[in-house]
C-alpha cells in the first residue's frame, strides 16, 4: 500500500508505556493531525515515524517497505520541530539548502531550489539574511521550506505553530493546508490545538494515554465521537448520564427520551453539543424542565447554563433562536434524539 502504515507500534520508557499498540494507515497524500493532551504519546509516535526514537515493538511501513530500523538520515522525510531547530550559524538560504549541500549538489542547483522555496513561502530575496533577524512567522516559514527542500515522501510537523500568536497561527494553518494540497505530500502534524486540527486535517487522530481513541475526518470526530474522551476533548459537549428503566425506556434527566436506547439495555452516556440543545417554553411537549443558573452573553452567541435534575446543561444559541430567559427562570430543554450520541459510560 502506498502511504504510511503503523503496525502494533509500542514504545516503553522503563515501566511507562508512552505509545501502546498503535495501528494506523495513512494513505498517500493525506493530511493527518494527531491530537491529544500533553503526554498522550503523540510526539513520541511522530519521533518514531521520523526514526528519532525506536519503537519497543511493532513496525513502521512506508510505501510497503519496512523502515522500522532504518536510521533517520536514510528515511526520505522532512520534519519541522517545535523549536524550529533552524541552524543559528547558517543564513536563511544556507538553512534551506542544507539537505542539498550535504549531498554535494551543485551550487547552481542549490540556489535555484532555494529561490523556488523562498518564493513558495512568500519570502523572496531573504536568502542571505541571518536566521536570528527573522520574525516568528518568518522563521516558521523557513523551517517549513527547509523540511521540503528535497521533496520528501513524508512531511512531519511537531507542534509547528505553537510559538506564534493566535492571529498568525490561524493564517499559517490555512497556508500550511494550501501548501500541502498543492504539493500532495503525506503530512502528519502533532498538535494539542483542536481548532488547528479541524482546520487542516483530512484525518484527525485523537490520542490519549498512548492509544488512538478515534481516527476519522474532523466532521465525523465532531458529530460521531467514539467515546466520552473524544466527545469531551473535541469542542465542548454535554455529557448526560442515561439508564434503561424496567419498561425498557431510555431515561435521562429523570425523563424518558423516546428514540434513544442504551446498547445492551444498560447504562450509557449521552453526548449533546451545546448548539444542539434547544430551549423552549417550560412544559412544552417532549421537553425537560430546568432552571437557568447563569447566562453568558457573548454578543454573537449566548450560552445558557441550566440545572436539570441536578445536572448542568449548557445550551449555545444565537440571540434570535432563543426565548428570553433570565437567571432563576424555568425553561424547557429539548433533546433531539437525532443529534444525541449514545456512548459507553
Amino acid at each position, binding site marked *: 500500500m502506498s502511504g504510511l502504515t503503523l503496525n502494533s507500534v509500542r514504545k516503553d520508557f522503563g515501566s511507562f508505556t508512552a505509545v501502546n499498540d498503535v495501528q494506523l494507515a495513512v494513505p498517500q497524500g493525506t493530511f493527518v493531525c494527531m491530537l491529544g493532551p500533553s503526554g498522550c504519546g503523540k510526539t513520541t509516535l511522530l519521533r518514531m515515524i521520523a526514526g*528519532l526514537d*525506536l519503537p519497543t515493538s511493532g513496525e513502521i511501513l512506508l510505501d510497503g517497505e519496512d523502515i522500522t530500523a532504518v536510521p*533517520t538520515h536514510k528515511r526520505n522525510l522532512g520534519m519541522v520541530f517545535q523549536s524550529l531547530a533552524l541552524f543559528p550559524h547558517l543564513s536563511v538560504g544556507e538553512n534551506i539548502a542544507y539537505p542539498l549541500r550535504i549531498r554535494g549538489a551543485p551550487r547552481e542547483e542549490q540556489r535555484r531550489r532555494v529561490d523556488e522555496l523562498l518564493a513558495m513561502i512568500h519570502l523572496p530575496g531573504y536568502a542571505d539574511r541571518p536566521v536570528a533577524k527573522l520574525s516568528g512567522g518568518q522563521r516558521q516559514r523557513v523551517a517549513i521550506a527547509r523540511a521540503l527542500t528535497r521533496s520528501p515522501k513524508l512531511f512531519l510537523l511537531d507542534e509547528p505553530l505553537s510559538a506564534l500568536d493566535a492571529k498568525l497561527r490561524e493564517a499559517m494553518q490555512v497556508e500550511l493546508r494550501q501548501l500541502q494540497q498543492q504539493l500532495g505530500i503525506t503530512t502528519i502534524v502533532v498538535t494539542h490545538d483542536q481548532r488547528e486540527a479541524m482546520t487542516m486535517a483530512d484525518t484527525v487522530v485523537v490520542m490519549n494515554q498512548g492509544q488512538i481513541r478515534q481516527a476519522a475526518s474532523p466532521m465525523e470526530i465532531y458529530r460521531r465521537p467514539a467515546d466520552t474522551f473524544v466527545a469531551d476533548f473535541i469542542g465542548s459537549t454535554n455529557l448526560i448520564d442515561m439508564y434503561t428503566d424496567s419498561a425498557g425506556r431510555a431515561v435521562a434527566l429523570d425523563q424518558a427520551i423516546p428514540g434513544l436506547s442504551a446498547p445492551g439495555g444498560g447504562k450509557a452516556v449521552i453526548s449533546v453539543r451545546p448548539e444542539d440543545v434547544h430551549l423552549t417554553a417550560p412544559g412544552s411537549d417532549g421537553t425537560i424542565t430546568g432552571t437557568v443558573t447563569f447566562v453568558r452573553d457573548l454578543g454573537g452567541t449566548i450560552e445558557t447554563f441550566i440545572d436539570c435534575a441536578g445536572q448542568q446543561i449548557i445550551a449555545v444559541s444565537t440571540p434570535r433562536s432563543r426565548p428570553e430567559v433570565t437567571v432563576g427562570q424555568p425553561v424547557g430543554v429539548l433533546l433531539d434524539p437525532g443529534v444525541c450520541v449514545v456512548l459507553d459510560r
Partner: protein
Amino acid sequence: MRRETPQRLTDYAPIAFPAIMLTVFFVIPFGTMISVSFFQRQQGGFYTPAFVFSNYERFLSLFFANVLGFSLMLAVLVAICCVVLGVPFTYLLTRLTRRAQIIWMVVLLSVLSLSEVIIGFAWSTLFSRTAGITNLLVVLGLMEKAVALSPGFPAVLTAMVYQALPYTILVLYPALIRLDPTLTEAARTLGASPLRAFFTVVVPALRTTIMATLIMVFIFALGSYLLPQILGRPQHWTLSVLITDQAIYQSNMPFAAAMAVFLVLVTLAMVALTLFAGRKREAAT
C-alpha cells in the same frame, strides 16, 4: 539524534585517545608517585625500589606537625579572607551592566593566570625597602623612612589572598548571577535596607555555596608552593613548599612523594566533606 549507548566497537573509538592519554600520563604517574613514597632513599639523590614506611614515619615529628598545622591554618585564613572579601564583591559585580562585568572578568582572569613566580616577585617588589609601598608613604609624609615589609607572615597572607581572590570570585560568580534578584527586591519592599537585605536574604540563600567556596579556596591555598617561600621565613613554609623543596633541592623523592600522598588525602578528605555537607543540606531542605 538519540543519545545512545555505544553499539559497535567503532563507537568507542573517539574516547580511546583521551582515555589512553589520561591513564598513561595521569593515573600511572599518580601510581608511580605512590610507589616512590615507599621506596628507599639512597645517598646522592637516588632511590631504590623497596617497601618501607620510613618516609611516612617522618610525619611523626614535631617539625612536621608544625608544618602541617601552619599549612592548614594559613589555608583556612586565606579562605576566610577571600570569602569575606569575595562574596559582597561578587554580589555587587553581578548587579553591574554586562559590559562592566566583562571588564572586571578580564581583569580577574588576567590576575588569576599569573604564575606564582610573578605574583611572588610583584609582591616582594611592593613590599621591598627600595621600591615598595612604604616609599609612597614617605613621599606623602606619612612615614620617616622606607622599610621592608617582607619577609613576614602578613606578606605571605596578603599575596596568597591576592592569588586566591580572583579564583574565589570566579567560583562564586555562577551561583550569584543565578540568584533571583527579586529576592532582595522583595526584602527591600518589606523595609530592609540594602545592607540588611544582603545579610538577611542573600547570605542565607547562599549558605551552601559559601561553604563549598570556602573549601575550594582552602584547597587552592593549600596548593600554593612558592609564595610562602618567596615572601616568608622558613617557619612560614607550607606542605606544598616542603614537597617542592624535598623533591628539587634536597633530592629526597621518596619523602616528597610520601608528603604528596598525604596532601592528596587531606585534599580528598576536604572534597568528601564538601560533598557530604552539600548532600546533608540538600536532604534537610
